[in-house]
């Protein structure tokens, strides 16, 4: 279970998150939505300890990770898989080496076993036979799939997605959404997706959290959020620009 309590984070003088709190149950699938720059990715990185809050607690299975040092965090991070916005593939390695990275570092397997697991995971993300390709040869959608394969090969309990469909065309975005659902259902993982793509949020989230003005502004099922009459939620869901922002 993931629990965030009273989280506050500033970069310099700029407050990004203020008194943020929520719970995510095991096996639950949650979409965190919000405008660009609202602090969604910053919040996601706090869940895995990549950023330290100014104040507040982040509990993973009841264990507060905020006071932990980098070494202690490494142990907790084995529970996580994370797909980065840019996929963050290691560009000096092939696809197979990228995908096998976590296995090679943390599990003592034979090369044959690693090869079998890599092939199986690439098959799961619909990229069979791409083991020997370099990241530079891949399209944006393929890079995300490889990034996801790398994140799930060691079968984590929680998978975090940072803007999984940003920069992809609607058809590829749809296939990534399906993949997120496939991973969730096959591996029975807790899923947290940060997105500003309403379609992704609706499809993959059993619950939607909306980040606005540095706080969790709305928290409900996709239907509750998408049918909300609250003007702030409505504006975001409908994708209507703030009239004041259109002034010259």
């Amino acid at each position, binding site marked *: 279970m993931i629990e965030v309590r009273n989280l506050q984070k500033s970069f310099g003088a700029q407050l990004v998150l203020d008194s943020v709190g929520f719970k995510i149950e095991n096996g639950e699938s949650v979409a965190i939505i919000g405008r660009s720059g609202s602090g969604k990715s910053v919040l996601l*990185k706090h869940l*895995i*300890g*990549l950023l330290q809050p100014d104040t507040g607690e982040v509990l993973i299975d009841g264990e507060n990770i905020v006071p932990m040092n*980098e*070494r202690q*965090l*490494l*142990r907790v*991070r*084995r529970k*996580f*898989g*994370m797909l*980065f*916005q*840019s996929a*963050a*593939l*290691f*560009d*000096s390695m092939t696809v197979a080496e990228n995908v096998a*990275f*976590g296995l090679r*570092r*943390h599990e003592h397997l034979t090369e044959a076993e690693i090869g079998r697991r890599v092939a199986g995971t690439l098959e799961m993300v619909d990229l069979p036979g791409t083991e020997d390709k370099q990241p530079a040869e891949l399209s944006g959608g393929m890079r995300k799939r490889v990034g996801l394969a*790398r*994140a799930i090969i060691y079968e984590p309990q929680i998978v975090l997605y940072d803007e999984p469909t940003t920069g992809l065309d609607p058809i590829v975005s749809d296939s990534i959404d399906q993949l997120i659902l496939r991973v969730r259902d096959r591996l029975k993982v807790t899923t947290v997706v940060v997105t500003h793509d309403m379609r992704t949020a609706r499809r993959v989230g059993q619950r939607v959290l909306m980040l606005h003005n540095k706080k969790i502004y709305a928290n409900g099922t996709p239907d509750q959020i998408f049918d909300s009459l609250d003007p702030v939620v409505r504006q975001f869901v409908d994708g209507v620009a703030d009239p004041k922002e259109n002034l010259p």
Partner: protein
Amino acid sequence: MFSLSASKRVTAALAELGQITLLAREAAASLLKGRASWRDLLYQIYFIGVQSQSVVLITGAFTGMVLAAQTYLQFHKFKMDTTTLAVVSVAMCSELGPVLTALMVAGRVGAAMAAEIGTMRVTEQIDALRALATDPVDYLVVPRLVAAHVALPLLTVEVIVIGILGGYFVSVNLLDIEPTYLWANMLKYTHESDLIIGLIKAFIYGGVIALIGCYKGMTCRLGAEGVGQATTEAVVYASITILIANFFLTLVLGKLVSLL
């Protein structure tokens, strides 16, 4: 105004020195616990050691040759031609060998380390490492640091040898110095301690290059400009540190060796 800015700069420089020391401590702890992989270490030894050879050998050969020519021009006035190679040898062993090797490797390898790690930071690859439960110090810093400590002394030996051979070639073939006396004087005036001092210096400079290169990469500002600046600073800071450290190491090691 000036003193405020100067004091800020001194504070920033001291803070940076502290950070590099902490990085060195973390790397040492990681090394002692054996968290680095042999595969990564061997690749880095190949990259730092094998691939730097042409650069440092050319540097060593031409430095030995020009040093021989210059020494001869001065010593010839006092009929001391046959001690030319002794000067080349002592200078190459204790000063020029380690310093020139380190400066060339700082330019080639220190810059590459800062650029590679800096790019990894900018493209979230460092965060990806951490998310994959891998400490960037174990994976990126330790293999580079150990490889530089191993490769620099080996490269320095090559530079010393090629420098002396270059000096010998110029002395005998271009300056017509009697080879037997030339060689005998070199052996007479070059002591084991000169070579030991040179190798200790090279070992230390390897650490300086790797630590500064890795630190600059891991702390670079985001964006292409940040990576460029980190790369430049890695080379400049490493080179300056090597030149300043060389002076103090010469004093300290010279004293230590004389006591033994």
